[in-house]
């Protein structure tokens, strides 16, 4: 019997689950190999759990979410979080930083009206997660790799090293060494090093790599005219909620 797969959504832009439908070449083969029994964005037929694999997009932002994710965890044998929202709270986790901008007060002005939590948090803060796919959005290739790896019983190839490894393999000239600020050295690979190949620095949508050394990167940024506060600002993006970046922002 083919594995029963479900796709769930929390606070998000839907971009990550759309990546499933963006796998045009593989889509029909995938739906032939796995049974997508729960995927409200794509099908009306809906089936309750248990599921073999559950893909979760989005961050936890409401009290109901807290309950729903626990149920989903119980229903799924393998739980895969997809994207920056699900793995680090997403861009909406900017609200977690009390000192940023005036919008926290917008949330708190009428808290009684809100069924919204003061924070946007990653799924793994609430339930154990088996596989994490990073990125805003996730990489289609990594998504396909994960699905095929689960079908084959393989460990998916999801490296935690820096973007630079992919950047060099691709043959892009380093934009940082040639004068443009880039977060690549402290950011997790997976996208294929897109930004440098478009002549801009990596802006970190895959979150921190393992062994991320932001303090050292600060010197490289200074060398291209970007002082420490600029680096701190740059880290306040789509993976602002990652603890390594939070810590680095405080230290900078």
């Amino acid at each position: 019997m083919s594995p029963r797969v479900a796709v769930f959504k929390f606070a998000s832009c839907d971009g990550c689950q759309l990546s499933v439908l963006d796998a045009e070449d593989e889509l029909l083969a995938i739906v032939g190999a796995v049974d997508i029994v729960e995927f409200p964005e794509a099908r009306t037929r809906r089936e309750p759990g248990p599921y073999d694999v559950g893909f979760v997009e989005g961050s936890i932002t409401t009290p109901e979410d807290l309950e729903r994710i626990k149920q989903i965890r119980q229903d799924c044998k393998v739980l895969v979080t997809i994207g920056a929202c699900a793995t680090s709270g997403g861009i909406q986790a900017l609200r977690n930083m009390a000192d940023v901008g005036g919008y926290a007060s917008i949330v708190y002005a009428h808290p009684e009206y809100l069924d919204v939590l003061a924070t946007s948090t990653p799924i793994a803060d609430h339930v154990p997660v088996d596989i994490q796919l990073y990125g805003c959005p996730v990489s289609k290739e990594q998504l396909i790799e994960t699905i095929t790896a689960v079908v084959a019983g393989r460990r998916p190839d999801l490296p935690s090293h820096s973007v630079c490894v992919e950047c060099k393999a691709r043959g892009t000239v380093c934009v940082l060494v040639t004068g443009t600020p880039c977060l690549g050295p402290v950011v997790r690979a997976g996208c294929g090093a897109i930004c440098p190949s478009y002549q801009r620095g990596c802006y970190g949508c895959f979150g921190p790599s393992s062994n991320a050394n932001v303090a050292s990167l600060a010197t490289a940024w200074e060398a291209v005219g970007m002082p420490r506060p600029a680096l701190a600002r740059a880290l306040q993006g789509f993976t602002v909620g990652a603890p390594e970046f939070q810590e680095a922002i405080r230290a900078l």
Partner: protein
Amino acid sequence: MPSEVRTIEVGYLTRVEGEGRMKVVARDGKVEEVVFSIFEPPRFFEAFLRGKHHSEAPDITARICGICPVAYQMSSVHAMEHAFGVSVEGPLRDLRMLLYCGEWIESHALHIYLLHAPDFLGYESGISLAQDHPDIVAMGLRLKKAGNEIVRVLGGREIHPVNVKVGGWYRLPTRAELDHLATVLDRVHDDAISTVALVATFPMPDVSRTLEWVSTRYPGEYPMLGKTVVSSAGLDIPVHEWNDWFVEEHVARSNALHSRIKTRGSYETGPTARFNLNSELLSPGAAAAAHQAGLTAPCTNPFQSIVVRAVETLHAVEAALQIIDGYRAPAAPAIQFVEKAGEGCGASEAPRGTLFHRYRLDAKAMITDAQIVPPTAQNQLSIEEDLRLVLEKHIAEPDDRLRTILEQSIRNYDPCISCATHFLELEVDRG
């Protein structure tokens, strides 16, 4: 005689982008309540845009919606350029249109084949449609892939592309990249034509209504990157006068703002509105295909929006080919400008309709205030009016069938709920 009350509720609308629900109540054959509401949790984009540098807006606002990120990038860069008193024209603008063509093709093909066609053909999803009609879905996927390929080549990736910036681009495409796109588009040109013919054969519920249609306009072009806003009731204003004419309101049951035209009420934006206001500006092939499909402006049957979408897809394929053909690389990937304080407005045509952005910037070109009006919020009232109409017309149908038609009529708008819940302030009327 006890009165008969029928309630049809769909707690979680499927095959739409985001989380919404629908409820209609009829008493003794009379429509009593019609609600299309949005419960997707808000993400407070306009709030956290405050304090961000203007250059971050295209990347940040893209994350409002994974299905139309290009639209957000376009409306935001136009608003910023308006604030700085510059405008991007010539080949840099053409490339923006090319990127937009990619998004239209991708988004329309997704909606037509995977989300909407199943309603007309009696399937619960594109996935099950593919089981019986693999050729049809394969054709849709080919088209979708071609659209995505444009966005990937110009933007770096299909969703949340990275190459758009205020003033132009980070990197210009190479001739080889554009030639590759031309080949890709040539290959799906026939698919785009066949798509119009195919959807024109779909059985349509027979409903007709007229309302005020709104779209942007740019002289001589089928609208994409608009300069003015026009309507079927004679509105014709520069984009920056948007707030003088349109107003957003809070509605209790929804996590989104509804908009209406001041003093007039609901209106529709999107493919049908664009077509009704600009059909003479379609590419020759698209105009011919529309004619052959029996589609004429004004199109008053909301269910025909699927045909309009197919026509626009063909238009985008042809427009893209024309842009590639005429492209001459400009000297620099972006124009120079001086950052300054001010306010700027921009609007463009997301696949689902007009997307309006307005920003206020301080002296360091940091955002102090942002306003985003996405198409689905604008259409919410007309969606409800359509539901009412359809309900009245089909009230005799059994519940299951009725529910299907009602859901289908919501999908006529290809609603994008993630977009609709961007909002700034929250004032929820809990009755």
